[in-house]
């Protein structure tokens, strides 16, 4: 249990998807103009990560790993294509259910819901998971779930924070060519410096 909590804290604050690895930056920069839409997209990312990471973990563990399916067969070169198919299939499903049950959220997110499939943080989490010593069996499954969920929470925190700052930026006197994208990058850089202070925390 202690391991899981420590893993969660690490992936939310220290190995933050945005501030440490820059994953999912495209939608992060494009949808962070208003806090309400940022919350919607952040929630969608948490949901998709929390489901697809353990799903991909199980597929990797029981099908793709060397000797997993048939002794002597190594299918790990298929990892990319299998992971991305799982993710895009799942996102398609989520998109259809959001369209049906929350039309307001659907129209607010617009094009970015289908683009979660190509949000690097989703595939990135699946690929980072491969390098983590989660082990097999139920413990590994629990670790993968916690990892996916807390990576999503880290992404959520990052996008909501940036959206809040950008809403206030309207009242600041920024040099004209720096407005919009330029100043946003510098903001992200400064926020990333702030998150560095979490480094070295061990629980």
């Amino acid at each position, binding site marked *: 249990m202690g391991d899981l909590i420590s893993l969660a804290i690490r992936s939310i604050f220290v190995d933050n998807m945005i501030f440490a690895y820059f994953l999912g930056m495209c939608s992060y920069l494009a949808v962070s103009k208003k806090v309400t839409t940022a919350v919607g997209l952040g929630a969608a990312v948490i949901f998709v990560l929390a489901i697809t990471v353990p799903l991909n973990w199980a597929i990797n563990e029981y099908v793709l790993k060397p000797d997993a399916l048939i002794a002597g067969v190594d299918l790990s070169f298929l990892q990319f294509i299998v992971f991305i198919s799982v993710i895009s*299939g799942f996102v398609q499903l989520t998109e259809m259910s959001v369209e049906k049950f929350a039309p307001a959220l659907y129209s607010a997110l617009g094009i970015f819901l289908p683009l979660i499939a*190509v949000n690097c943080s989703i595939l990135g989490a699946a690929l980072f998971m491969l390098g983590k010593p989660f082990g097999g069996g139920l413990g590994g499954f629990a670790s993968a779930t916690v990892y996916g969920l807390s990576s999503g929470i880290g992404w959520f925190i990052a996008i909501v924070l940036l959206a809040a700052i950008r809403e206030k930026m309207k009242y600041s006197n920024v040099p004209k060519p720096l407005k919009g994208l330029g100043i946003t990058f510098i903001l992200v*850089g400064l926020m990333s410096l702030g998150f560095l202070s979490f480094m070295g925390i061990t629980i």
Partner: protein
Amino acid sequence: MSTQVADAKVEKVSEPLFSKKNRKLLVDPLDGNNPVTVQVLGICSALAVTVQMKPALFMALGLTFVTAFSNLFISFIRNTIPSRIRIIVQLAVVSLWVILVDQLLKAYMYDISKQLSVFVGLIITNCIVMGRLEAFAMANKPWPSLLDGLGNGFGYGIILLAVAFFRELLGSGSLYGYKIIGADSLTGLPYQGNGLMMLPAGACIIVGLLIWAQRARNGYAEDH
């Protein structure tokens, strides 16, 4: 659907391989319509692999290869893809090319492949690739699509190399692995590496300043 038919009719007139329109496809993304600084695509890897110039160069080459050939391939089969499942078809095509690049890097350039780590795999979800497939290859003939892919790959590469140039020079005083300034270097000038440039934060700030410089030159500004 109707626009595709119209396009096909217009392009019936045969044009030279490097007509003005085709050259524009290749040159435009280098500056005026740059994928990273103007279209805001493919940011993740532009920030993450630019600590040194060598991995940045190979990343740019890999992405150019994948964008160009996915564009070409999707353009060949564009009229047979059902539009409801096009994203999945596109992802499948892109990941085939990425697997090829990844296996090649692993086989022949293992250190580079280690340095790039997950970012080779993440070319699949690089927005430049998907963005060009959606916006260009689905509606255009193979040859312009190939050029468009190459152009956008090069545009991405220029930004990657520019960011890596500043980060490597200011961060560790070297370029492409050769020590340029600092103790026991070629010039012998005194220099203390700036740790900020090695951190993720340094990349963000460099990209922000690059965008500032480019927009000040082109006279382009956003509303807020």
